[in-house]
Protein backbone atom coordinates (compact mmCIF):
# COMPACT_ATOMS: atom_id res chain seq x y z
CA UNK A 1 0.00 0.00 0.00
CA UNK A 2 1.25 3.47 -0.76
CA UNK A 3 1.69 4.98 2.63
CA UNK A 4 -0.66 7.86 3.01
CA UNK A 5 -0.12 8.80 6.59
CA UNK A 6 -2.33 11.12 8.54
CA UNK A 7 -0.06 12.81 11.03
CA UNK A 8 -1.08 13.99 14.48
CA UNK A 9 -1.95 17.45 13.27
CA UNK A 10 -4.02 16.12 10.38
CA UNK A 11 -1.46 16.69 7.65
CA UNK A 12 -0.89 14.13 5.00
CA UNK A 13 2.36 12.39 4.15
CA UNK A 14 2.69 10.21 1.07
CA UNK A 15 5.57 7.77 0.79
CA UNK A 16 6.34 5.72 -2.28
CA UNK A 17 8.80 2.81 -2.21
CA UNK A 18 11.34 2.21 -4.97
CA UNK A 19 9.51 -0.94 -6.07
CA UNK A 20 6.17 0.83 -6.32
CA UNK A 21 7.84 3.60 -8.25
CA UNK A 22 9.28 1.10 -10.75
CA UNK A 23 5.90 -0.50 -11.24
CA UNK A 24 4.19 2.84 -11.68
CA UNK A 25 6.79 3.76 -14.28
CA UNK A 26 6.09 0.50 -16.10
CA UNK A 27 2.35 1.22 -16.23
CA UNK A 28 2.95 4.72 -17.58
CA UNK A 29 5.43 3.50 -20.18
CA UNK A 30 2.85 1.05 -21.47
CA UNK A 31 0.17 3.74 -21.53
CA UNK A 32 2.50 6.03 -23.45
CA UNK A 33 3.24 3.43 -26.10
CA UNK A 34 -0.41 2.31 -26.48
CA UNK A 35 -1.85 5.83 -26.77
CA UNK A 36 1.13 7.48 -28.48
CA UNK A 37 0.69 10.21 -25.89
CA UNK A 38 3.36 12.86 -26.10
CA UNK A 39 3.54 13.38 -22.33
CA UNK A 40 2.11 11.55 -19.33
CA UNK A 41 2.32 12.72 -15.72
CA UNK A 42 1.27 11.15 -12.47
CA UNK A 43 0.89 13.65 -9.64
CA UNK A 44 -0.67 13.82 -6.20
CA UNK A 45 -3.70 16.02 -5.66
CA UNK A 46 -1.68 18.71 -3.91
CA UNK A 47 0.18 19.22 -7.19
CA UNK A 48 3.44 17.39 -6.50
CA UNK A 49 4.74 15.53 -9.52
CA UNK A 50 5.40 11.82 -8.94
CA UNK A 51 6.65 10.62 -12.28
CA UNK A 52 6.54 11.40 -15.97
CA UNK A 53 6.82 9.61 -19.29
CA UNK A 54 7.16 10.61 -22.93
CA UNK A 55 8.65 13.80 -24.22
CA UNK A 56 9.12 15.99 -21.18
CA UNK A 57 12.17 17.98 -22.26
CA UNK A 58 10.25 20.93 -23.67
CA UNK A 59 7.68 21.05 -20.90
CA UNK A 60 8.17 22.19 -17.33
CA UNK A 61 6.35 19.25 -15.79
CA UNK A 62 6.53 20.58 -12.22
CA UNK A 63 4.45 23.53 -13.38
CA UNK A 64 2.17 21.36 -15.48
CA UNK A 65 1.32 19.17 -12.49
CA UNK A 66 0.74 22.19 -10.22
CA UNK A 67 -1.63 23.70 -12.79
CA UNK A 68 -3.38 20.39 -13.46
CA UNK A 69 -3.93 19.76 -9.73
CA UNK A 70 -5.52 23.17 -9.34
CA UNK A 71 -7.58 22.62 -12.46
CA UNK A 72 -8.81 19.36 -10.99
CA UNK A 73 -9.50 20.84 -7.57
CA UNK A 74 -11.33 23.81 -9.09
CA UNK A 75 -13.53 21.44 -11.06
CA UNK A 76 -14.34 19.47 -7.92
CA UNK A 77 -15.45 22.69 -6.23
CA UNK A 78 -17.58 23.47 -9.28
CA UNK A 79 -19.12 20.01 -9.00
CA UNK A 80 -20.11 20.78 -5.41
CA UNK A 81 -21.58 24.15 -6.37
CA UNK A 82 -23.82 22.67 -9.06
CA UNK A 83 -25.04 19.98 -6.68
CA UNK A 84 -22.97 17.03 -7.92
CA UNK A 85 -22.18 14.87 -4.90
CA UNK A 86 -19.34 12.90 -6.42
CA UNK A 87 -16.27 14.66 -7.77
CA UNK A 88 -16.04 14.96 -11.55
CA UNK A 89 -13.78 12.09 -12.51
CA UNK A 90 -12.16 13.45 -15.61
CA UNK A 91 -11.38 16.60 -17.49
CA UNK A 92 -10.70 17.05 -21.15
CA UNK A 93 -9.13 20.08 -22.81
CA UNK A 94 -9.29 20.22 -26.57
CA UNK A 95 -6.71 22.19 -28.49
CA UNK A 96 -5.78 22.68 -32.13
CA UNK A 97 -2.61 20.59 -31.95
CA UNK A 98 -2.76 18.90 -28.57
CA UNK A 99 -5.43 17.59 -26.27
CA UNK A 100 -5.08 17.12 -22.53
CA UNK A 101 -6.92 14.43 -20.63
CA UNK A 102 -6.97 14.44 -16.82
CA UNK A 103 -8.35 11.66 -14.70
CA UNK A 104 -8.23 10.91 -10.99
CA UNK A 105 -6.49 7.78 -9.71
CA UNK A 106 -8.18 6.99 -6.41
CA UNK A 107 -8.53 9.84 -3.94
CA UNK A 108 -4.92 10.99 -3.75
CA UNK A 109 -3.53 10.99 -7.29
CA UNK A 110 -4.33 11.94 -10.87
CA UNK A 111 -3.01 11.33 -14.38
CA UNK A 112 -2.35 13.92 -17.06
CA UNK A 113 -2.20 12.61 -20.62
CA UNK A 114 -1.12 15.02 -23.36
CA UNK A 115 -1.71 13.70 -26.87
CA UNK A 116 -1.83 14.78 -30.48
CA UNK A 117 -5.25 15.68 -31.94
CA UNK A 118 -4.81 12.89 -34.50
CA UNK A 119 -5.20 10.30 -31.74
CA UNK A 120 -8.83 9.50 -30.99
CA UNK A 121 -10.12 10.33 -27.55
CA UNK A 122 -11.84 6.94 -27.26
CA UNK A 123 -8.52 5.15 -27.50
CA UNK A 124 -6.97 7.36 -24.84
CA UNK A 125 -9.97 6.80 -22.57
CA UNK A 126 -9.85 3.02 -22.86
CA UNK A 127 -6.12 2.69 -22.18
CA UNK A 128 -6.12 5.34 -19.47
CA UNK A 129 -8.92 3.50 -17.68
CA UNK A 130 -6.89 0.31 -17.80
CA UNK A 131 -3.76 2.09 -16.60
CA UNK A 132 -5.67 3.61 -13.68
CA UNK A 133 -6.77 0.15 -12.57
CA UNK A 134 -3.17 -1.07 -12.78
CA UNK A 135 -1.95 1.92 -10.81
CA UNK A 136 -4.55 1.32 -8.11
CA UNK A 137 -3.33 -2.28 -7.90
CA UNK A 138 0.24 -1.07 -7.45
CA UNK A 139 -0.87 1.35 -4.74
CA UNK A 140 -2.56 -1.54 -2.94
CA UNK A 141 0.53 -3.76 -2.82
CA UNK A 142 1.52 -4.02 0.79
CA UNK A 143 5.09 -3.03 1.06
CA UNK A 144 6.17 -0.53 3.64
CA UNK A 145 8.93 1.94 3.00
CA UNK A 146 11.02 3.64 5.61
CA UNK A 147 9.27 6.59 7.02
CA UNK A 148 10.28 10.20 6.90
CA UNK A 149 12.06 9.90 10.24
CA UNK A 150 14.86 8.00 8.56
CA UNK A 151 15.51 10.87 6.21
CA UNK A 152 14.74 13.98 8.13
CA UNK A 153 16.91 13.75 11.22
CA UNK A 154 18.79 16.42 13.17
CA UNK A 155 21.75 16.14 10.85
CA UNK A 156 19.56 16.70 7.85
CA UNK A 157 18.04 19.90 9.22
CA UNK A 158 21.35 21.49 10.05
CA UNK A 159 22.80 20.60 6.64
CA UNK A 160 19.69 21.96 4.97
CA UNK A 161 20.10 25.19 6.95
CA UNK A 162 23.66 25.56 5.68
CA UNK A 163 22.62 24.91 2.10
CA UNK A 164 19.85 27.47 2.31
CA UNK A 165 22.31 30.04 3.63
CA UNK A 166 24.57 29.23 0.72
CA UNK A 167 21.78 29.47 -1.88
CA UNK A 168 20.16 32.59 -0.45
CA UNK A 169 23.30 34.71 -0.38
Amino acid at each position, binding site marked *: MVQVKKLKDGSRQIILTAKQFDEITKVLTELASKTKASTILLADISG*QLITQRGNTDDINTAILSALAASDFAATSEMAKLVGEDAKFKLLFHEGEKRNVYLSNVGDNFFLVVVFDVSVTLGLVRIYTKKAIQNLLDVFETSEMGDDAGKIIDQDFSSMLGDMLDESFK
Partner: protein
Amino acid sequence: MFINWALQEINLKIVYYGPGMCGKTTNLEYIHSKLDPSLTGELVTLKTKEDRTIFFDFMQIEVGRIKGKKPKFNLYTVPGQVYYASSRKIILNGVDGIVFVADSQKDRMEGNIETLLDLENNLMAMGHSLETFPWVIQYNKRDLPNTESLDILQKKLNFFHVPHFESVAIKGTGVFDTLKSIINQVVQHVQRQL
Protein backbone atom coordinates in the same frame (compact mmCIF):
# COMPACT_ATOMS: atom_id res chain seq x y z
CA MET B 1 4.77 16.10 1.93
CA PHE B 2 5.60 13.58 -0.71
CA ILE B 3 8.58 11.24 -0.44
CA ASN B 4 9.78 9.28 -3.44
CA TRP B 5 12.26 6.62 -2.36
CA ALA B 6 13.25 5.67 -5.88
CA LEU B 7 14.37 9.19 -6.75
CA GLN B 8 15.26 10.05 -3.14
CA GLU B 9 13.12 13.15 -3.38
CA ILE B 10 11.30 15.00 -0.65
CA ASN B 11 8.65 17.43 -1.86
CA LEU B 12 7.31 20.12 0.42
CA LYS B 13 4.54 22.60 -0.30
CA ILE B 14 4.76 26.11 1.12
CA VAL B 15 1.93 28.60 0.65
CA TYR B 16 2.14 32.40 0.95
CA TYR B 17 -1.16 33.60 2.37
CA GLY B 18 -2.40 37.12 3.12
CA PRO B 19 -4.83 39.90 2.23
CA GLY B 20 -5.01 41.44 -1.24
CA MET B 21 -2.05 43.60 -2.30
CA CYS B 22 0.06 42.64 0.74
CA GLY B 23 3.02 41.48 -1.37
CA LYS B 24 2.78 37.68 -1.70
CA THR B 25 3.59 37.66 -5.40
CA THR B 26 6.34 40.23 -4.79
CA ASN B 27 7.99 37.78 -2.37
CA LEU B 28 8.09 35.07 -5.03
CA GLU B 29 9.24 37.50 -7.72
CA TYR B 30 12.13 38.59 -5.54
CA ILE B 31 13.16 35.01 -4.71
CA HIS B 32 12.96 34.10 -8.37
CA SER B 33 15.04 37.08 -9.46
CA LYS B 34 17.80 36.47 -6.91
CA LEU B 35 18.22 32.70 -6.89
CA ASP B 36 20.69 31.03 -9.19
CA PRO B 37 18.67 29.86 -12.25
CA SER B 38 20.00 26.33 -11.71
CA LEU B 39 18.12 26.16 -8.40
CA THR B 40 14.76 27.42 -9.50
CA GLY B 41 12.27 26.77 -12.28
CA GLU B 42 10.08 29.24 -14.04
CA LEU B 43 7.76 31.47 -11.99
CA VAL B 44 4.20 30.92 -13.15
CA THR B 45 1.71 33.65 -12.34
CA LEU B 46 -1.97 33.42 -13.10
CA LYS B 47 -3.01 37.06 -13.17
CA THR B 48 -5.87 39.25 -14.33
CA LYS B 49 -5.27 42.04 -16.82
CA GLU B 50 -4.83 44.36 -13.85
CA ASP B 51 -1.93 42.27 -12.53
CA ARG B 52 -3.93 40.82 -9.65
CA THR B 53 -3.44 37.13 -8.87
CA ILE B 54 -6.53 35.27 -10.07
CA PHE B 55 -5.61 31.74 -8.99
CA PHE B 56 -2.03 31.35 -7.78
CA ASP B 57 1.67 31.85 -8.46
CA PHE B 58 3.95 28.85 -8.43
CA MET B 59 7.62 28.12 -8.48
CA GLN B 60 9.87 25.25 -7.45
CA ILE B 61 13.20 25.56 -5.63
CA GLU B 62 15.89 22.92 -5.30
CA VAL B 63 19.00 23.30 -3.17
CA GLY B 64 20.92 20.22 -4.26
CA ARG B 65 21.38 16.93 -2.45
CA ILE B 66 21.61 16.49 1.29
CA LYS B 67 22.81 13.09 2.47
CA GLY B 68 21.82 11.78 -0.94
CA LYS B 69 18.30 13.17 -0.65
CA LYS B 70 16.93 15.87 -2.86
CA PRO B 71 14.56 18.29 -1.12
CA LYS B 72 12.29 20.27 -3.42
CA PHE B 73 10.24 23.20 -2.23
CA ASN B 74 7.08 24.10 -4.08
CA LEU B 75 6.12 27.70 -3.36
CA TYR B 76 2.58 28.93 -4.00
CA THR B 77 0.71 32.16 -3.37
CA VAL B 78 -3.05 32.49 -3.02
CA PRO B 79 -5.23 35.25 -4.50
CA GLY B 80 -5.77 37.74 -1.67
CA GLN B 81 -9.02 39.30 -2.78
CA VAL B 82 -11.94 38.32 -0.55
CA TYR B 83 -14.12 36.78 -3.26
CA TYR B 84 -11.51 34.18 -4.26
CA ALA B 85 -12.20 32.19 -1.10
CA SER B 86 -12.67 28.86 -2.90
CA SER B 87 -9.40 29.27 -4.78
CA ARG B 88 -7.52 29.83 -1.52
CA LYS B 89 -9.00 26.64 -0.09
CA ILE B 90 -7.92 24.65 -3.15
CA ILE B 91 -4.33 25.86 -3.00
CA LEU B 92 -4.01 24.91 0.66
CA ASN B 93 -4.58 21.28 -0.31
CA GLY B 94 -1.60 19.25 0.92
CA VAL B 95 0.20 22.29 2.37
CA ASP B 96 3.20 21.69 4.67
CA GLY B 97 3.91 25.24 5.83
CA ILE B 98 2.45 28.74 5.56
CA VAL B 99 3.93 32.22 5.32
CA PHE B 100 1.31 34.75 6.39
CA VAL B 101 2.17 38.04 4.73
CA ALA B 102 0.58 40.92 6.63
CA ASP B 103 0.30 44.46 5.29
CA SER B 104 1.81 46.76 7.94
CA GLN B 105 -0.22 49.82 6.96
CA LYS B 106 -2.59 51.00 9.69
CA ASP B 107 -5.70 50.95 7.50
CA ARG B 108 -5.00 47.34 6.44
CA MET B 109 -5.21 45.84 9.93
CA GLU B 110 -8.79 44.72 9.47
CA GLY B 111 -7.91 43.03 6.19
CA ASN B 112 -5.05 41.21 7.91
CA ILE B 113 -7.26 39.93 10.71
CA GLU B 114 -10.03 38.91 8.33
CA THR B 115 -7.59 36.95 6.16
CA LEU B 116 -5.99 35.28 9.17
CA LEU B 117 -9.42 34.09 10.29
CA ASP B 118 -10.12 32.89 6.76
CA LEU B 119 -6.86 30.93 6.90
CA GLU B 120 -7.73 29.39 10.26
CA ASN B 121 -11.17 28.35 8.94
CA ASN B 122 -9.65 26.73 5.87
CA LEU B 123 -7.02 24.94 7.94
CA MET B 124 -9.65 23.67 10.35
CA ALA B 125 -11.67 22.27 7.47
CA MET B 126 -8.58 20.20 6.62
CA GLY B 127 -8.07 19.07 10.22
CA HIS B 128 -5.24 21.51 11.03
CA SER B 129 -5.07 24.51 13.32
CA LEU B 130 -2.86 27.58 13.43
CA GLU B 131 -1.97 26.62 16.97
CA THR B 132 0.01 23.56 15.89
CA PHE B 133 0.63 24.00 12.16
CA PRO B 134 4.04 25.29 10.93
CA TRP B 135 3.67 28.94 9.94
CA VAL B 136 5.49 32.27 10.20
CA ILE B 137 4.38 35.90 9.88
CA GLN B 138 5.98 38.46 7.63
CA TYR B 139 5.09 42.11 8.34
CA ASN B 140 5.55 43.63 4.92
CA LYS B 141 5.80 47.20 3.62
CA ARG B 142 7.77 48.44 6.64
CA ASP B 143 9.16 51.29 4.51
CA LEU B 144 5.79 52.95 3.98
CA PRO B 145 4.57 55.88 6.09
CA ASN B 146 1.58 55.21 8.30
CA THR B 147 2.57 51.69 9.28
CA GLU B 148 1.45 50.12 12.52
CA SER B 149 4.12 49.58 15.20
CA LEU B 150 5.63 46.11 15.44
CA ASP B 151 4.30 45.86 18.97
CA ILE B 152 0.67 46.35 17.90
CA LEU B 153 1.03 44.05 14.89
CA GLN B 154 2.42 41.35 17.16
CA LYS B 155 -0.40 41.77 19.69
CA LYS B 156 -3.14 41.69 17.10
CA LEU B 157 -1.87 39.03 14.73
CA ASN B 158 0.77 36.85 16.33
CA PHE B 159 -1.27 35.29 19.12
CA PHE B 160 0.55 31.94 18.82
CA HIS B 161 4.01 33.53 18.96
CA VAL B 162 5.27 32.10 15.70
CA PRO B 163 8.51 33.47 14.18
CA HIS B 164 7.96 36.92 12.65
CA PHE B 165 9.89 39.07 10.20
CA GLU B 166 9.78 42.71 9.15
CA SER B 167 10.10 43.10 5.42
CA VAL B 168 10.14 45.33 2.39
CA ALA B 169 9.48 42.61 -0.18
CA ILE B 170 9.89 44.87 -3.18
CA LYS B 171 13.50 45.53 -2.12
CA GLY B 172 14.01 42.00 -0.85
CA THR B 173 14.44 42.97 2.81
CA GLY B 174 13.40 40.03 5.00
CA VAL B 175 12.30 37.85 2.09
CA PHE B 176 14.95 35.13 2.36
CA ASP B 177 14.88 35.20 6.17
CA THR B 178 11.17 34.45 6.01
CA LEU B 179 11.59 31.62 3.52
CA LYS B 180 14.41 30.06 5.47
CA SER B 181 12.43 30.22 8.66
CA ILE B 182 9.35 28.51 7.23
CA ILE B 183 11.47 25.74 5.71
CA ASN B 184 13.06 25.20 9.15
CA GLN B 185 9.64 25.19 10.80
CA VAL B 186 8.38 22.55 8.38
CA VAL B 187 11.43 20.33 8.82
CA GLN B 188 11.28 20.58 12.62
CA HIS B 189 7.58 19.86 12.51
CA VAL B 190 8.18 16.70 10.50
CA GLN B 191 10.73 15.59 13.12
CA ARG B 192 8.31 16.27 15.97
CA GLN B 193 5.56 14.28 14.28
CA LEU B 194 7.61 11.10 14.12
